[in-house]
């Protein structure tokens, strides 16, 4: 504490000399002392932002115009990487299956989370049930991927054992190109469903109960009230949930890396996996940066569109 008060005294002493230089005497001395302390306190955040967000952003854009193999300095190649991107069938394939994954995960995930949240809201306020639903969110993607890979194992996995008893057939969940992406999307839904349900539930609690009482007086059924009252009032939160899940889903990597590693035969080679392979498998950092830039622009565009279309910042409640 002693050091701190000394520091404060030093600030007080220097304050008058600064006032001479400063041509705005309207600013009180106390306020200027605030400014010194404030800048000191925000220094870590500013440095962290500049070094690990700002600088990498610019450097990433620069690298996408270069050929760069990490060990030797990057060489400027202009638009060559972008031309390569346009003609890269693997990239377009990756983009297609990533979009497929995003659609599957976001649509089923959002519908399920919404259903769970709405039902919880009308049935019970039990924090225990919400807690249990949240369990998959607390464990890592790696664990989620491993346990599902075990449960979906073609021979010994419990799901396939049950399937075999019911239908006489097993499913190659990770081993067939048709099933790989839906399987990964399902695992992702399992992992995030509870989190988004709790998020939507929090939103539902902001809707005044009087609205439902009024609805009931008017003779509306639960289903009618859900579509006429709940959904419109929930729109801002739903938009946020969808934007968050889209951004999340586009960056899917962990569960793919642990289970299929992009296979079979590129069937689950999602964008992030392809970028990782290019950068750390082939050390083609320049081209990997170009693809990251494409993903960044894509995400920014999608987010902007979603917010525009949904007018997220306007609530019907206020």
């Amino acid at each position, binding site marked *: 504490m002693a050091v701190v008060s000394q520091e404060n005294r030093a600030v007080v002493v220097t304050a008058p000399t600064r006032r001479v230089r400063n041509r705005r005497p309207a600013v009180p001395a106390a306020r200027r002392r605030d400014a010194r302390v404030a800048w000191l306190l925000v220094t870590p955040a500013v440095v962290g932002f500049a070094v690990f967000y700002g600088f990498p952003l610019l450097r990433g854009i620069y690298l996408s115009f270069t050929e760069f193999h990490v060990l030797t300095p990057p060489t400027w190649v202009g638009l060559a990487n972008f031309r390569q991107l346009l003609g890269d069938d693997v990239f377009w394939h990756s983009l297609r299956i990533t979009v497929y994954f995003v659609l599957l995960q976001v649509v089923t995930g959002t519908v399920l989370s919404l259903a769970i949240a709405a039902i919880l809201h009308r049935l019970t306020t039990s924090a225990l049930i919400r807690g249990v639903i949240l369990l998959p969110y607390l464990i890592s993607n790696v*664990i989620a991927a491993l346990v599902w890979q075990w449960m979906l194992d073609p021979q010994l996995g419990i799901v396939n054992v049950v399937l075999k008893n019911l239908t006489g057939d097993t499913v190659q969940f990770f081993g067939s190109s048709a099933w790989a992406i839906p399987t990964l999307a399902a695992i992702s839904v399992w992992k995030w*469903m509870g989190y988004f349900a709790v998020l939507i539930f929090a939103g539902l609690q902001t809707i005044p109960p009087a609205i439902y009482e009024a609805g009931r007086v008017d003779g509306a059924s639960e289903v009618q009230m859900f579509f006429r009252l709940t959904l419109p009032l929930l729109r801002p939160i739903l938009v946020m949930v969808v934007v968050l899940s889209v951004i999340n889903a586009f960056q899917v990597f962990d569960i793919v890396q642990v289970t299929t590693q992009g296979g079979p035969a590129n069937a689950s080679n999602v964008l992030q996996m392809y970028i990782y392979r290019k950068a750390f498998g082939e050390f083609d950092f320049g081209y990997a940066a170009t693809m990251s830039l494409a993903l960044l622009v894509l995400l920014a565009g999608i987010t902007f569109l979603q917010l525009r279309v949904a007018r997220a910042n306007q609530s019907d409640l206020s």
Partner: protein
Amino acid sequence: MTQRFGRVLAWVFLAVVLLVTVFPFFWIVRTALSNNFALATHPSSLLPADFTLGPFKRVLGLATLSEAQAEGGSGASLDALLYLRNSVIYAAGLTAVVVFCSAAGAYAFARLRWRGRNALFSILLCALMIPTVFTMLPNFVLVKDLGLTNSFAGLVAPNALFFAFALFFLRQFMLGLPTEIEEAAIVDGAGHFRILFRIILPMSSGPLTTLSLLMFIVAWNDYFWPLLVTGKKSVQPLTLALGVFKQSSPNTAPDWAGLMAATLVAAVPMLALFVVFGRRIVNSIGFTGFR
């Protein structure tokens, strides 16, 4: 009548959701306590097949090679304790630095008046728009140039000083604190640091705890960044080790019992946090939308 039918249907739906959510956790425990050979002969038994603690011994490196192979292990041990230590250092270190830096920054942004405050805050807000996907590669190059790969400093570097959510979360809370106590302290001649450490931080203990929990969970579960910057056992966190353990196990007949035991070792700290702080974690998920 239809009303009651609807309620029953809703409860059934909820029960199915809960079952699907919880069953994999049960299956991890059941498999982790099984003999790996017995798993093949009793794939659908709900109880552990040929109950044994062998998988945990394998994972913790306590089983001899012959013991491990007798129960279907690959002979590869995981050294779970070492990875566990690494995960604790990484998660606790990152949490401590993030919470400290964010608290300091949040105080400046919420309680002090200074020129450029709002402009600077808007600039920092931009960080939320940049997906980690994009900064990951350049950050790797940077950390590599700084010679920080395979070190805990390199692991925590990208997020330690500035983690957007943490700063905004604390600022939001501090904006709502009453000013009277602070003003009284100023009248008494207290400096800003004294106010921060003696008044504001104690008043913010609730949000600080919540934030620490969430940060710890995020760091504990992190996979991609550690995958990029760590290649040595001495710093790799447990999430990475799980992948390594899986790859060391033969593809045709993996040591599922051992893998699930390892998974459990990695999940237990999170489940313990959940048992102790469950309500706090549940309530913290509001409109902030973590991550």
